C-alpha cells in the first residue's frame, strides 16, 4: 500500500508543545504542507511574536525571527522591503494583532505591504493564562472577565478582518476555522491563496483563523472544536471578506 499522508518536510520532527487539540498545531501543519507544496521552504521567512506560538521556530524548518509583542507587521515590513525576494509571513495571536499590534497591522495593510499575516483568533490570551482578548465574545468568561465580558465595561469583540478589508492596501482577507476536516481544507486553501497574492505582489494578505484553545476555554478538545461552530462563527462569520484578485481559487 502507498503512503498517502505523512509529515511535511518543512515541519521539524520536534513534538509540538501546544496543548492537546490546539489550533496552533493544526495551523502549523497546514502551513508547512503548503510551504512544501508551493516549494517555498528556501525563501520563506516567518515572524512569530510572543503568544503561545512564540516557539513556532522550533517547528517550521525555515528562517524565522522572533519579534516584540504586536510588532510583527512592522518587522515583516522592514524585512520584506530590505529583501523583497523573500516570502514573509507573521504568525500572530489575537492579543498580538488586534490589541497591542493594531496600529502596525492596519498601517502595514494600508501601505499594501507585500506580506501575509496569519492571525490566530482563539478569543483569549493563551500564553499568559487565559485573560480577555480583544476578540473575546460577549459574556465569555476569562481570567480577567470572571463574570463574563460586558460590553459596557470591556467593549465588543473586535473584527479585524472586516476592519482591514476597509483599508485600501489590503488585497486578500479571509476568515476560516480549523475545527473540522472540511474547514481545515478550506483554511489551507485560504493560506495558499494568501501566499499566492504575496508572490504576485498584489499587497497585504491576511487569513484569520478561528482556532480552538481547549485549555483556556476549559473544554475537552472535541468540545472546543464544536464550540467554534456552535458559538464563535456567529460572531465571526467565515468566508472571503476581501479579494481583489477577482479569481476563484483553483485549490
Amino acid at each position, binding site marked *: *500500500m*502507498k*503512503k*498517502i*499522508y*505523512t*509529515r*511535511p518536510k518543512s*515541519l521539524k520532527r520536534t*513534538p*509540538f508543545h*501546544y*496543548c*492537546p*487539540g*490546539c*489550533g496552533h*498545531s*493544526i495551523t502549523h*501543519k497546514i502551513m508547512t504542507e503548503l510551504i512544501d507544496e508551493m516549494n517555498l521552504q528556501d525563501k520563506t521567512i516567518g515572524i512569530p511574536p510572543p503568544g503561545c506560538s512564540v516557539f513556532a521556530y522550533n517547528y517550521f524548518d525555515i528562517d524565522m525571527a522572533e519579534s516584540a509583542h504586536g510588532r510583527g507587521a512592522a518587522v515583516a515590513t522592514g524585512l520584506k522591503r530590505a529583501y523583497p525576494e523573500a516570502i514573509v509571513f507573521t504568525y500572530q495571536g489575537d492579543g498580538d494583532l488586534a490589541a497591542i499590534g493594531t496600529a502596525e497591522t492596519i498601517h502595514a495593510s494600508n501601505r499594501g505591504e507585500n506580506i501575509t499575516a496569519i492571525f490566530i483568533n482563539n478569543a483569549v490570551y493563551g500564553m499568559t493564562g487565559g485573560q480577555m482578548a480583544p476578540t473575546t465574545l460577549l459574556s465569555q468568561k476569562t481570567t480577567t472577565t470572571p463574570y463574563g465580558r460586558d460590553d459596557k465595561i470591556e467593549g465588543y469583540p473586535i473584527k479585524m478582518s472586516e476592519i482591514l478589508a476597509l483599508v485600501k492596501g489590503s488585497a486578500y482577507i479571509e476568515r476560516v476555522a480549523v475545527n*473540522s*476536516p472540511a474547514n*481545515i*481544507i478550506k483554511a489551507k486553501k485560504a493560506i495558499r491563496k494568501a501566499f499566492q497574492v504575496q508572490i504576485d505582489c498584489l499587497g497585504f494578505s491576511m487569513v484569520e483563523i478561528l482556532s480552538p484553545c*481547549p485549555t483556556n476555554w476549559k473544554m*475537552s*478538545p*472535541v468540545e472546543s*472544536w464544536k464550540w467554534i461552530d456552535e458559538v464563535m462563527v456567529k460572531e465571526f462569520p467565515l468566508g472571503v471578506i476581501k479579494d481583489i484578485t477577482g479569481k476563484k481559487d483553483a485549490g
Partner: protein
Amino acid sequence: MKGYIEIDQVLCKGCEICTFFCPKGMINSSDKLNPSGYRVAVFNDNSECTGCAICAVVCPEVAIEVYRG
C-alpha cells in the same frame, strides 16, 4: 483492506479528535500512556478503514500516517 493508518505513539496527545471524526469509528482511545503521559489513540484494525485520511487531516500532532492501496 482498502487502507490503514499508523499512529505515532510518541507524538499522540490523546485528544480524541481523530476518534470523533473517523467516519468508520476506526480509532479508539486507550489506557496506554506514552512517555509524555498522554493516553494514546489506537487504530482498531477491523479492515473497514477506507484510507480517507480524515483522521490525519484533523490530527493536530501530525501523529497519523495513512496508507491506501
